C-alpha cells in the first residue's frame, strides 16, 4: 500500500501582540544540530526549517561511505600494436598505469598469440581512492592469420564473470566481492580514413553483447578535420548496418534525460584521439602534446583532437554507469545463461584449448 503524503506545509506563525512588559522578539530560526545546511527545504515550501526532517542527509551519508571503501575500475585496451593504446591510457589517467610503463620495454616481441596482461595501480584524487586495472591484449590483430583472435579476449571476459558468480553463490560470502570484471573495453580503430577493417567488425560483433565497447580512432593526428568527420560517419554507418551497439547502448538509456545526453555522445563517437605524456610550452602554458615539424598537436585542445571529450565522457560522467551496465546487464546476462544451461557445470573452455588461462 503506498500513499503520497507530502510533509505538512506549516503556516507561518502569526506574530503575537506583544505584552507591554516583554521586549520585542528577536527571530531566531531553529537550526538542526548537525544538518548539512543549505539546500534542505521541506518540499512544500513555507517556512524553511520547521518542517525539516533530514531525509536528504542520506546523500552525504552515502557519499561518505563510498569514499571510505574506494572504487575499482577495470579497463581493457584492444587494438593492433603501435596504435598508441598504452600512451592513451596513461594520458587519460595522467599516470603511468599502463603495462608498458610497468617494466616492459618497447622491444618486446609481438607475441604469437593474443595474450592477456593485466596490471593494477591505486590512484587517488580529492580523497577518492581508485584501484585501476588496465588489461592489455598484445598480439591482437598482429598475426598474418587473425582468425578468431578475439577468442582469448572473450574467454578472459567470461572468466571474470565466472569468478564473480562463484563468489556470489557461496554460502558464506565475502562482504565485498572482488570485482575483476571488465567494465570498459577501448577498441582502437586504425586511422585509415576509409572504413572499418573486417577484424574490427568481427571483434565488435562478437564482444559487443558481452562487454561495454568504446571504439576510438587512434593516432587521429593523421586525419584532417574533414577526413575525420567523414571517417566517423562511415564507421558509425557501418556499425549500424552490422547491428553492432557500442557503449552507451541505446537500449539501456534509463530516461529521456539520459537518452538525450547519450544521443549527443553517440553522434560524436567514435572519438578521434591523440595521446601523449610529454609536455610542451604553448602560448605560455604547459600542455600535453605531440611535437611535429609542422606544429604541436595539443592533446587537450578540442580543436586538435577529441581526447578531452573522451576523457570527460569516460571518467567524469560515465565511469559509474559503465560499472553499473556491466553489473546489471552484461553480468546478469552471463549469469542467467550459465544457470540455465543444464549441465553447464564444467569449467569454461574455448574451442581451441581446454586450459583456463592464468593471469
Amino acid at each position, binding site marked *: 500500500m503506498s500513499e503520497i503524503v507530502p510533509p505538512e506545509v506549516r503556516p507561518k506563525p502569526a506574530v503575537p501582540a506583544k505584552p507591554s512588559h516583554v521586549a520585542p522578539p528577536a527571530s531566531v530560526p531553529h537550526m538542526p544540530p548537525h544538518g548539512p545546511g543549505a539546500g534542505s527545504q521541506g518540499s512544500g515550501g513555507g517556512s524553511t526549517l520547521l518542517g525539516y526532517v533530514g531525509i536528504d542527509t542520506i546523500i552525504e551519508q552515502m557519499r561518505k561511505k563510498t569514499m571510505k571503501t574506494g572504487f575499482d575500475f577495470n579497463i581493457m585496451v584492444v587494438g593492433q600494436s603501435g596504435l598508441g593504446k598504452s600512451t592513451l591510457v596513461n594520458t587519460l589517467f595522467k599516470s603511468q598505469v599502463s603495462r608498458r610503463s610497468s617494466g616492459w620495454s618497447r622491444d618486446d616481441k609481438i607475441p604469437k598469440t593474443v595474450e592477456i596482461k593485466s596490471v593494477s595501480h591505486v590512484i587517488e584524487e580529492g580523497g577518492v581512492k581508485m584501484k585501476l586495472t588496465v588489461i592489455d591484449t598484445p598480439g591482437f590483430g598482429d598475426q598474418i592469420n587473425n582468425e578468431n583472435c578475439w577468442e582469448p579476449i572473450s574467454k578472459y571476459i567470461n572468466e571474470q564473470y565466472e569468478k564473480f558468480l562463484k563468489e556470489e553463490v557461496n554460502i558464506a560470502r565475502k562482504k565485498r566481492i572482488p570485482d575483476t570484471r571488465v567494465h570498459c573495453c577501448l577498441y582502437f580503430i586504425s586511422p585509415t580514413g576509409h572504413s572499418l577493417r573486417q577484424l574490427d567488425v568481427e571483434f565488435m560483433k562478437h564482444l559487443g553483447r558481452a562487454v561495454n565497447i568504446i571504439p576510438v580512432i587512434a593516432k587521429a593526428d593523421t586525419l584532417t578535420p574533414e577526413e575525420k568527420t567523414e571517417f566517423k560517419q562511415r564507421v558509425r554507418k557501418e556499425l549500424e548496418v552490422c547491428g553492432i551497439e557500442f557503449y552507451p547502448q541505446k537500449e539501456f538509456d534509463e530516461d529521456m534525460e539520459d537518452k538525450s545526453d547519450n544521443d549527443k555522445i553517440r553522434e560524436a563517437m567514435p572519438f578521434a584521439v591523440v595521446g601523449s605524456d610529454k*609536455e610542451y610550452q604553448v602560448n605560455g602554458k604547459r600542455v600535453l602534446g605531440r611535437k611535429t615539424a609542422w606544429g604541436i598537436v595539443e592533446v587537450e585542445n578540442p580543436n586538435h583532437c577529441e581526447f578531452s571529450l573522451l576523457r570527460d565522457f569516460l571518467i567524469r560522467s560515465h565511469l559509474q554507469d559503465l560499472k553499473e551496465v556491466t553489473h546489471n546487464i552484461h553480468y546478469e546476462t552471463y549469469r542467467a545463461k550459465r544457470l540455465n544451461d543444464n549441465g553447464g557445470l564444467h569449467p569454461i573452455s574455448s574451442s581451441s584449448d581446454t586450459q583456463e588461462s592464468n593471469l
Partner: protein
Amino acid sequence: SLGSWWLWRFLLGFEKGEGVRAVPLSGHVGFDSMPDQLVNKSVNHGFCFNILCVGETGLGKSTLMDTLFNTKFEGEPTQHNQPGVQLKSNTYELQESNVRLKLTIVNTVGFGDQINKEDSYKPIVEFIDTHFEAYLQEELKIKRTLHSYHDSRIHACLYFIAPTGHSLKSLDLVTMKKLDSKVNIIPIIAKSDAISKSELAKFKIKITSELVSNGVQIYQFPTDDETVAEINSTMNGHLPFAVVGSTEEVKIGNKMVKARQYPWGTVQVENENHCDFVKLREMLIRVNMEDLREQTHTRHYELYRRCKLEEMGFKDTDPDSKPFSLQETYEAKRNEFMGELQKKEEEMRQMFVQRVKEKEAELKEAEKELHEKFDRLKKLHQDEKKKLEDKKKALDDEQNIFKQKKTAAELLQSQAQQAGGSTTLKRDKERKK
C-alpha cells in the same frame, strides 16, 4: 593543475595478500566525481527505508513516527482487545529537496495485550523472515532485476519500552533476544515524560545492564568513520533514548514548538533537556540511515541467507566443487522437485482415471441391476397376468359347461313335461332299440 601530486609509495592491500602499488597523478583526471556519479544514480532511483515499531498498544508508536517525520500518517489508534499480534505495514512517499524516500512503517498491533504472550514474538520474527526470503528468492532467480527491486527488508526496529521506571518486562527481553540477530534494534523508552529525571537515569542503567546480562545485541552506532565516530560513540552511551512524541504545537516564547502541555508545565519534544527525541532523530535519520541499511544487507540478511541455504542442504564443500555446489545442488533440487511434482501429478491423474473407471463400473452395475429388476418385475407381471387369464379362462370354461349343462337339463325337463310319458316313450324307444 599540472603540479605534482605525489603520494608516497606504499603497498595498499585492497584484497588480502595482494599488494597494489600507488602511483601519483600528474594532473587532474576527474574521477573524484565518482561519489557524485554514484550518488546521482541513487537519487534517480530513489531510496527506501523500512522501520518496524515493536511495543505494547498505547505507547505512542504512531505519534512518534508522525513526530519524527513531521507528517500525519494515517491510522486510528488500536483497541486493546486484539486476539493476537498482527503486523500492519504502510508505505509513504516523502520528498526533501531532490531526495525521494519510500518510507515503510510497520506496526505491531496487539502486542502485549494478550493474557498468554508466549508466542507474541513469533509473528514479528516471521514477518522479518518473510521479507528476507522475498529478497533471497529474487536473488536466486535466473532472470532477476535486483537493481530495481523494492527492498522491503526491515532496516531498523524501534523497540518501545514501557515507562515503568523499574526494569524491562520479560516479554521485552524475550522478544529482543529473538530479534537481535535479525534486525538492528534501537531500544527507546516511550512516553518518557512519565518518569522523573533521576528515575530515568536509574531506569536507563537498569535496562542496559539487563540487556547486557541477557546477551541482547542492540544496534551500535558505528564508530569507524572519524567524521561521525565521536557523536556516535557519545550517543551509544545515551541508549535507550527516552522519547516523547507530539504533533501538537504549543507557543513557547515566540515560537511554536512541538510539545505536550500539562497543568504543571510543558514538555518540549525538541528540547534536549526534556527528552532524547532530537538524539533519536539525529541517529536514526540524519547520521546513520545509510549504515542501518547497509548492516541489514551485509550482516542480518547474509546470516539469514546462510542459515536458509544450509538448512536447504546446500554446502560450501571442497574448493573444487565450490563454484557449482550451490548451482548444482540448486539445479538438482529443482529437478528433483520438478520430478516429484510430475510424479505426483501423474499419480493424481492415475488416481482420477481410476476413480472415474470405478464410478463408471459402479454406475453400469447399478444400471444392469435396474434392468434386471425391471425385467424380473415385467416377467412377474406377465406371469401374474397369464395366471389370471388362465383362471379367467378356466372360470369361463366352467361357466360355459355349467351353462351347457343347465341348458341341457332344462331341455330334458321340458321334454319330459311334454310327453307325460315322454319318459316312457323314451323308454319304449330305448326298449325298441
